[in-house]
């Protein structure tokens, strides 16, 4: 074999055998063939490098639209003896439940001059042993006016995401409650009028933004904010001060006698990169007179008006192996103590042991009402730890992100543990496989949830 390192001969030695080809000719032919192949490979590569870019294809249009289609399958092992299962004892709960679901989300905007119309619509349906359930909602629909880069006015339904926390937002006075298991999901907005003023400078405070919000409460509109026919006010002042994001927030809410859990509050949050791979954030919120619905020891329901403080401290850290860690500690001032939650979990058991059907129904109805008034929210306790570890593209598998998330109730030591696999390697597709395991004894938060685990496969196609 010609190694390529052999000295090249420039003449052909006469062959001793007439039937044998000259070795130099063979080598030359081989080289020529190799050169041809290399040239062809180069041509093929050049042909493959057919990279063109026509930015006109992405020219700005007044109308922009987008969205996604989603299909999912869920398998839940139900915790038939849990407190939240007992609340549904009008139905025969199976040991497990399989659910097929689909959703479509449409978003878009139409801009003309300084005015814009923005929308976000979502429709979803699901099929399980209980039958078919569907709903369609306008998540956002608002008009905006931008007279200049420093001022924007808007009117309509829009969602608020105040706060720096990833799983919880104590300062999210106008936020819709999010599910810490899916904190990035789109949420429905509220009808508001908003004005935003922004100012940049080269001084110590590089950016200032003041947002003022007016939120009306009418019949069927924003009713969870308190009594009807009132206007609620909220404001947020943002400062970028010495490379630190700081928000000062205020909400003028209910007077505490309206049954709303959105009482007047004020707070602050911050976020800062300590090093290039370490970010620190926090929130602090105080409500001077917040109502809390409590189940007393004698099984009566009472309303307590308290001065409550909630806070959160979190970090985001990226290590050399591309592992992102998010850690958050959350103290929920309006949360329930282990004792208070015990009483609620016990209520279902008492209903089961009730002597009469009437008494049973009465206790169950009381528990259902309490569930809606706070005991049934995703994390009703007082102290939590959230941790999420996500590893980007391990083993050089591009667009693949495995992650592990845990939420721990620090008082009763129950927790959820959620490993997941996410793949976005197919253009405009997102595939997520997730398994949530709920761990905890009876009379603990995660031990008394409706299900003990959940397996979910979700496909999203973006357009």
């Amino acid at each position: 074999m010609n190694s390529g390192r052999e000295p090249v001969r420039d003449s052909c030695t006469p062959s001793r055998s007439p039937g044998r080809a000259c070795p130099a000719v063979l080598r030359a032919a081989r080289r020529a063939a190799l050169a041809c192949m290399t040239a062809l490979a180069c041509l093929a590569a050049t042909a493959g490098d057919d990279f063109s870019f026509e930015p006109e294809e992405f020219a700005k249009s007044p109308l922009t639209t987008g969205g996604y289609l989603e299909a999912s399958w869920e398998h839940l092992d139900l915790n038939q003896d849990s407190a939240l299962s007992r609340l549904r004892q009008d139905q025969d709960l199976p040991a497990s439940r399989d659910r097929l679901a689909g959703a479509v989300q449409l978003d878009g905007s139409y801009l003309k001059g300084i005015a814009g119309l923005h929308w976000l619509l979502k429709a979803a349906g699901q099929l399980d042993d209980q039958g078919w359930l569907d709903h369609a909602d306008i998540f956002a629909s608002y008009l905006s006016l931008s007279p200049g880069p420093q001022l924007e006015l808007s009117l309509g339904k829009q969602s608020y995401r105040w706060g720096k926390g990833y799983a919880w937002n104590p300062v999210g006075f106008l936020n819709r409650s999010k599910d810490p298991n899916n904190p990035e999901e789109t949420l429905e907005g509220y009808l508001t009028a908003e004005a935003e003023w922004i100012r940049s400078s080269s001084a110590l405070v590089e950016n200032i933004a003041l947002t003022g919000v007016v939120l009306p409460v009418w019949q069927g509109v924003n009713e969870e904010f308190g009594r009807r026919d009132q206007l609620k006010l909220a404001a947020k002042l943002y400062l970028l001060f010495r490379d630190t994001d700081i928000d000062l927030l205020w909400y003028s809410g209910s007077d505490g006698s309206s049954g709303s859990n959105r009482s007047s509050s004020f707070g602050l949050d911050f976020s800062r990169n300590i090093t290039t791979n370490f970010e620190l954030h926090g929130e602090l919120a105080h409500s001077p007179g917040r109502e809390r619905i409590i189940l007393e020891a004698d099984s009566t329901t009472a309303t307590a008006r308290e001065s409550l403080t909630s806070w959160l401290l979190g970090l985001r850290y990226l290590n050399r192996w591309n592992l992102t860690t998010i850690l958050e500690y959350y103290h929920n001032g309006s949360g329930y103590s282990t004792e208070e939650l015990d009483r609620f979990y016990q209520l279902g058991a008492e209903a089961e042991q009730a002597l009469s059907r009437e008494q049973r129904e009465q206790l169950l109805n009381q528990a259902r009402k309490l569930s809606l008034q706070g005991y049934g929210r995703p994390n009703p306790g007082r102290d939590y730890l959230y941790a999420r570890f996500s590893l980007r593209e391990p083993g050089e598998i591009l667009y693949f992100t495995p992650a592990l998330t845990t939420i721990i109730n620090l008082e009763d030591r129950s927790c959820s543990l959620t490993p997941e696999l996410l793949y976005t390697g197919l253009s405009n597709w997102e595939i997520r496989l997730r398994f949530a395991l709920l761990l905890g004894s009876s009379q603990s938060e995660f031990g008394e949830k409706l299900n003990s685990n959940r397996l979910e496969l979700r496909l999203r196609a973006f357009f």
Partner: protein
Amino acid sequence: MNDSPNRLLRPLLLPLCALLLMVPATALALDGEQILAQVDRNLQPRSYEMYRKLINLEPDGSRREFVLYTLKKGEDKMVALFLAPASEKGRATLRLGENIWLYIPKVGRPIRITSLQSVIGGVFNNADILRLDFSSEYRVEQLREEDAHYLLTLKARTTAVAYDSLIMEVEKKRLLPTTIACHAASGMLIKTLRYSEIKDFGGGLVRPARLETDSPLHKGYRSIMLFARLRNRSVSDEVFSLNGFAKVDELR
């Protein structure tokens, strides 16, 4: 006695004249920092807008494409908005010096991210997508002159910069980079950038329209960046704020 000083100075006159003649030549020669500053200006105006297509080529022959609209102002303000594909559309990143925020439409609020965090998958990272001027992030440690090229060894000004050092080959004639080798603090080669396809973008800007990247860390993967509509544009400072950058599409 009176002419003795002249006599003493006479032998020095010729070398002094030669030295004086050499001064303008020295002043005209560029030092490393000047070359780097000129490379920056030849690559892009101080404030500009541009469109980019990023193409990730994978070993199996498949490819993924991303299209970005970018606005930069001054030394340290930059916004990049994804226009395609649909799954990334509306995703925007804001850089103010060492501060980087990411806006994802479905999350609905900007999140401060660590500057080393990757915004999208693939060989590209934030340093490629939100690169400021080279001279803002690097100082010239060594300048070597070759026949047709300068060879600049650049050292990151702070630890916040993604690559600890760069070895930049600069074409002497046009003062444009041809190849950049990016190294980690350990000296390990992270990736190599190759500029090609010199194009007239108008307004006196003649520069490469293509940047190719490969990395020994991602064997078999290549990334191509194509540049278009790169032109001088200055927008209000308020665009480069947490409340403003998610709406940058309205400025296109």
